[in-house]
């Protein structure tokens, strides 16, 4: 869903305010305090208010989380978000065009099924694209990162490329 200019400015300001911060600044759930886990989808979902499925929500990871009023639900799985987006709204990400704001996904080619849906293979990542910046959760640095899209692509092409081709997608935001 396209965002208005004012909404985008508000989103960018919000994202900028979290750059270099850890996930526990975003979420107080058990997952938000586990720095060994991949927080990419968790971070994006909190920023954009995505809580698609109870099965993949930080709010329902444990019974204690579900009772904690300080914990707001957010989707923690990349494939859950990707598969919620209509296939007509998923496009290959190229470096040559100034893309509209939205989400950026990366995974291994083998993790995309014939029907276009994403599988549950671990090598997958998500960020928010506000050209030319990608805001995402860097699991190496364990903090929110703001990187040029070229840098983002280079990093994940290298990290995920050991087991075959890597694919990048851009999509619109979820409604």
């Amino acid at each position, binding site marked *: 869903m396209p965002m208005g200019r004012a909404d985008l400015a508000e989103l960018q300001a919000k994202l900028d305010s979290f750059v270099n911060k850890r996930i526990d600044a975003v979420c107080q759930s*058990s*997952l938000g305090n*586990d720095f*060994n*886990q*991949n*927080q*990419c*989808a*968790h971070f994006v979902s909190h920023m954009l208010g995505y809580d698609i499925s*109870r*099965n*993949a929500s930080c709010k*329902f*990871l*444990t*019974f*204690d989380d*579900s*009772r904690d009023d300080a914990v707001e639900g957010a989707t*923690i*799985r*990349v*494939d*859950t978000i990707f598969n919620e987006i209509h296939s007509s709204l998923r496009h290959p990400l190229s470096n040559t065009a100034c893309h509209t704001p939205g989400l950026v996904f990366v995974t291994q080619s083998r993790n995309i*099924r014939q029907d276009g849906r994403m*599988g*549950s*293979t*671990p*090598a*997958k*990542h*998500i960020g928010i694209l506000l050209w030319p910046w990608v805001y995402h959760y*860097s*699991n*190496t640095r364990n903090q929110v990162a703001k990187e040029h899209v070229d840098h983002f692509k280079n*990093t*994940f092409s290298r*990290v*995920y490329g*050991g*087991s075959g081709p890597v694919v990048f997608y851009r999509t619109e935001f979820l409604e």
Partner: protein
Amino acid sequence: MTSSYIHRINLTSRALIASLLALLPGLSLAENVRSIDHSATIQILGQTDYLFPKEQACGENNRISVGEFLTDSLILLSEDPAGDTRVTVRCDALKVADDLRSFYGSEIYPDVAVRQLAQLKDGTPIHQCTVTLSNKQEEYAWARGIQALIDETGERLIEGTLRCLLTP
């Protein structure tokens, strides 16, 4: 663990459990972990014959067993570049009450979960345990876990409460 306990495990499960237990020296315990035999927790999961509900999206196909899920996780690990690999066991001490029954009444659990919990009296001590296998190397990081309610002895789990957990 006792030898009599091991004897109840079939060969496939024993190999699986041995693989997981081999990772235990690097065990990372959450602060709120209560006193429970974590090896036993892994063993009881490894010998459980149960199909996760399709609503939990645990595998590429609609339904996958606990054993297949654990095996797939170990295969993924074997294919991965060497990273920071951990097996984490987290158990939260709880008591059976209506709010706990309500938690397991959601659409991601089978109906039998509520029926099984209804058989337990209010106030019955119980643990919500999650065994998580994770790997992290640079930006490549993932975790796959299994969660269930397990009784105070750590030897009996309530099958309807089994759940897989995947990130990212």
